[in-house]
C-alpha cells in the first residue's frame, strides 16, 4: 500500500464511516476511566447487585429455553417426517416477527390476574372471581419465557443449517460403533454442531441483554432499565454511560464468543460429501409429540400474541386507520426507507471498494463495521447523543442552538450503525455471486471503477439490494429504545406509540401499531425461508446470508 491510497476516495469514505461507527462506542467505554459520581456510589451499593442478579437469571433462563426449543425443533424437523412438518419447518421462524416487548405486552393482557386467559378459565369452569389459574408473569421468569419464545429462531436457524450440513455417515458410523440412535444424537449429533449452537445462542443473549421494552414492562430491573432511569430519572448522563460501559463489556464478550464459535464451526462442518437427508417417518404417539413440540413455540410466540392483538383491535372497535396511526406509520416507514437506502448504498460502496482495491485494511474495517448490530439500542442512543452534541458545538456554536441534536440525523445514524450488518451480509453475498472475470474484462477495456460499479455490478445486484433494504426496514421498525431517546420532539414511530400506550396500560390502543410491526416483520421471514431452502448442500454459496443472523 502506498501513501497515494490515503487520498483515494474508495478508501477515505469507509474510513470516515468507521470513525463514525466507533467513536460513540469508544466514548462510552472511556467513561469507565473517568470520575464516579455519588449516583454511581448509590447504584453500586444498592441496585447494581439486583441488575446483575436479574440479568444472570434471565440469561440462564433464556439460554435453557432457546436451546431446548431451538435445537429440539431443528433436530426433529431435519431428521423426521411428522404431521405438519413441511409447514412447521418455516412456521418455526414466525416468532422472529414479534419483538420481545410486543410479546410481553400481549402476555400481560393474556395472563394477568384479570387478563384474557384467566377470565376464559373462570368463565369456562364457572369459577369465582378470585380464582387465578395462570401465575403472574411480570418477573424474571416471565421475562425468560418471553425471550425464549421470541428469540429461539436464532438457535433454530443455525442448528437446522448445521444438522442439514452434518454428514449422515457420521451418525451411522456412530451406530456401528455400538451406540443407540438417541445416544448417537447426544454424543455426536449435538457435540459436533456445538460451535454453531453457541453462535446462535450468543445472538440470542446479545438481544436479551439489549432489550429494554419487555423488561421495563415487566418491571424487572436490568442494566438497560437502570441506564434509562439514571439518564432520565436522575439526569446523570455520565453515570448512565458508566452503566452502559459495563453492559457493553458483557455484549463484547458474547460477540467474541459468537465470532470464535462461527470460525470453529467452519472446521467442524465435517465432510464435503453428503448423503441425502432421508427423514424417517414417525407414527403414532411419537408423531403426535413431535408435531406438538414444534407447534408449541409457534403457537406461544406467534399465534397467541396475534390472537390477543386481534381481540383488542376488534373488541374495542379500534379505528385502525385514524389520523394518529397514519402519521405514525408514515413517520416510521419514511425513517426506515431512508435508513435502508443509506445502509444498502454504504454496503455496496464498501464491498465494491474491497473488491476493487483488494485492500486488506478495508477488509478489517468492514468486519468492524458489521459488529454495530451487537451494540444495544440504548447504548447507541447514548453514544450518538453525545456525538451530536459534540458536532453541534463544533459546527453551529455561533447560532447557540442545537441543530443536529433532536433531529432525525441522530435516529438515522443510530439505525445505520445497528442495521448495517444486515445490509452488508446480503450485499456481500450478492457481490460474491458476480464472477470476478467480469471485472477483469472491464479492466482490460480500461473501464473506470465508477463505471464498473454503476453499469455492471449494480444492475446485477438489484435483488440483493432490495433484499437488504427489506431486512433493514423490518429491523428499524421494531427498534424501540434508540427511537424513544433520539426521536425529534413529538415524532412518534410505531414502536414508540406501542410503548407509550402499553406504559399507560392502554393495551387496546397499542394493538394497531403492534399489528403493523408484526406485519412488516413477516417480510424478512419470507425471504429467509426461501433462502433456507436454497442453502441446502449444493447451494452452499448462499449461506453467508445467515452469518449475521
Amino acid at each position: 500500500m502506498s501513501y497515494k491510497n490515503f487520498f483515494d476516495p474508495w478508501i477515505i469514505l469507509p474510513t470516515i464511516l468507521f470513525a463514525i461507527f466507533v467513536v460513540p462506542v469508544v466514548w462510552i467505554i472511556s467513561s469507565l476511566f473517568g470520575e464516579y459520581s455519588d449516583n454511581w456510589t448509590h447504584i453500586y451499593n444498592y441496585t447494581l447487585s439486583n441488575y446483575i442478579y436479574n440479568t444472570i437469571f434471565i440469561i440462564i433462563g433464556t439460554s435453557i429455553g432457546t436451546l431446548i426449543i431451538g435445537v429440539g425443533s431443528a433436530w426433529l424437523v431435519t431428521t423426521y417426517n411428522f404431521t405438519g412438518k413441511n409447514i412447521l419447518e418455516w412456521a418455526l421462524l414466525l416468532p422472529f416477527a414479534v419483538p420481545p416487548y410486543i410479546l410481553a405486552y400481549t402476555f400481560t393482557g393474556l395472563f394477568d390476574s384479570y387478563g384474557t386467559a384467566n377470565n376464559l378459565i373462570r368463565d369456562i369452569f364457572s369459577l369465582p372471581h378470585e380464582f387465578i389459574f395462570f401465575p403472574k408473569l411480570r418477573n424474571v421468569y416471565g421475562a425468560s419465557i418471553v425471550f425464549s419464545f421470541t428469540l429461539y429462531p436464532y438457535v433454530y436457524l443455525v442448528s437446522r443449517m448445521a444438522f442439514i450440513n452434518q454428514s449422515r455417515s457420521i451418525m451411522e458410523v456412530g451406530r456401528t460403533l455400538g451406540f443407540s440412535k438417541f445416544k448417537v444424537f447426544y454424543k455426536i449429533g449435538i457435540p459436533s454442531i456445538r460451535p454453531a449452537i453457541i453462535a446462535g445462542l450468543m445472538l440470542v443473549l446479545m438481544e436479551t441483554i439489549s432489550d429494554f421494552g419487555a423488561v421495563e414492562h415487566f418491571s424487572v430491573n436490568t442494566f438497560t432499565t437502570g441506564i434509562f432511569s439514571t439518564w432520565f430519572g436522575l439526569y446523570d448522563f455520565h453515570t448512565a454511560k458508566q452503566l452502559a460501559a459495563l453492559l457493553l463489556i458483557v455484549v463484547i464478550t458474547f460477540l467474541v464468543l459468537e465470532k470464535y464459535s462461527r470460525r470453529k464451526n467452519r472446521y467442524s462442518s465435517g465432510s464435503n460429501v453428503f448423503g441425502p437427508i432421508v427423514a424417517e417417518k414417525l407414527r403414532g404417539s411419537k408423531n403426535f409429540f413431535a408435531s406438538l413440540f414444534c407447534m408449541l413455540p409457534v403457537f406461544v410466540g406467534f399465534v397467541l400474541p396475534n390472537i390477543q392483538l386481534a381481540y383488542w383491535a376488534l373488541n374495542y372497535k379500534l379505528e385502525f386507520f385514524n389520523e394518529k396511526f397514519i402519521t405514525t406509520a408514515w413517520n416510521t416507514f419514511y425513517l426506515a426507507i431512508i435508513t435502508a437506502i443509506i445502509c444498502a448504498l454504504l454496503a455496496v460502496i464498501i464491498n465494491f471498494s474491497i473488491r476493487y482495491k483488494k485492500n486488506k485494511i478495508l477488509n478489517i474495517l468492514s468486519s468492524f463495521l458489521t459488529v454495530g448490530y451487537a451494540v444495544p439500542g440504548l447504548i447507541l442512543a447514548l453514544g450518538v447523543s453525545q456525538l451530536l452534541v459534540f458536532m453541534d458545538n463544533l459546527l453551529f456554536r455561533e447560532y447557540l442552538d442545537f441543530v443536529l441534536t433532536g433531529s432525525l440525523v441522530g435516529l438515522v445514524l443510530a439505525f445505520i450503525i445497528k442495521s448495517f450488518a444486515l445490509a452488508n451480509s446480503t450485499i456481500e453475498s450478492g457481490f460474491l455471486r458476480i464472477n470476478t472475470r467480469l471485472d477483469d474484462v472491464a479492466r482490460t477495456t480500461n473501464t473506470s471503477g465508477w463505471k464498473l460499479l454503476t453499469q455492471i455490478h449494480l444492475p446485477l445486484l438489484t435483488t440483493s439490494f432490495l433484499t437488504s433494504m427489506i431486512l433493514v426496514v423490518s429491523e428499524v421498525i421494531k427498534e424501540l429504545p434508540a427511537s424513544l431517546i433520539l426521536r425529534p420532539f413529538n415524532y412518534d414511530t410505531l414502536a414508540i406509540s406501542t410503548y407509550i400506550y402499553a406504559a399507560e396500560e392502554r393495551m387496546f390502543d397499542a394493538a394497531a401499531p403492534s399489528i403493523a410491526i408484526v406485519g412488516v416483520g413477516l417480510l424478512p421471514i419470507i425471504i429467509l425461508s426461501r433462502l433456507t431452502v436454497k442453502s441446502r448442500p449444493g447451494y452452499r454459496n448462499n449461506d453467508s446470508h445467515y452469518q449475521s443472523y
Partner: protein
Amino acid sequence: MTENTLEIKNLRHSFNTDIEVLKNINLNVSRGEIVSILGPSGCGKTTLLRIIAGLEKQTGGTVNINETIVSDSKSFVPTEKRGIGLVVQERALFPHLTIIKNVAFGLKGKKDEKYKIALDLLKLFKVDGYANNYPHEISSGEQQRVAIARAMAPNPKILLMDEPFGALDHALKSELRDETKKIFKDNGTTAIIVSHDFDDAISMSDHVLIIDDGLVAQEGSAKDLIPITRKNSFKIA
C-alpha cells in the same frame, strides 16, 4: 469350509417403488476372508452394505452374522448390536473429537486401556503422530487411515468398507491398500470392500463378487476373475 461370518440368503430390496434395487443376492463370507464387491454405479452396492449394517431393512431374505439371524421377515437386530465396523468414502470422522478420541469412541472400559488400544491401532496405520490433532488438521489419506483404525478398534465381527480408497490419488491409494491388506491378514479381519476399481478388488481380496442389475453377475476368486472380466470388457462406472 470354515464357519461363515456372514451369510446372505435370497436378499431382495426396493425403496418404496416397484423397482427392485437388489433382486436375489446370495453371499457367504467366511472368517478372515476379504471379499470385494464390484459393479456399476447405482447397482445397489451401498444398499447391500447398509442392509448388512442394519441401517436399512431389506424387503425380503435373510442376513446371518456368526450363524445367528440378524435380520429376516420376523426379527431385526439394530445396528449397534450387530458388532460390525463401517468405513465410508467420506471418512466421516467426528469433527469435534481428536484423532485418538475418534478411534477410542467405540471402545468400552477404562480410559487408559481404551487409549492404549487406540494408540496401537494408530501406530499400525502410521498416524500415531496425529493422536491429539483434530480431523480437519490432517490430510485425506491420513483421515482414511484413522477411519479404518476407528472401525477396527472394537474388534468387529465384520468390517464393511464402502469405496474406502475412492477419494485418494493413485499413489496414495495403492500404498494404503497394500498396508491395509497386510494389517487385515495379520489381524484375521473379515471384511467386505465395495469398490469401483478392479485394481482395488484384485489386489485386496480373496473373493470377488460382481453385481449388476440387482443380481450377482459373476463371482470367483480374484485370480480366476481377471481373464473373464477383461474379456467381457465390463464397464466400470
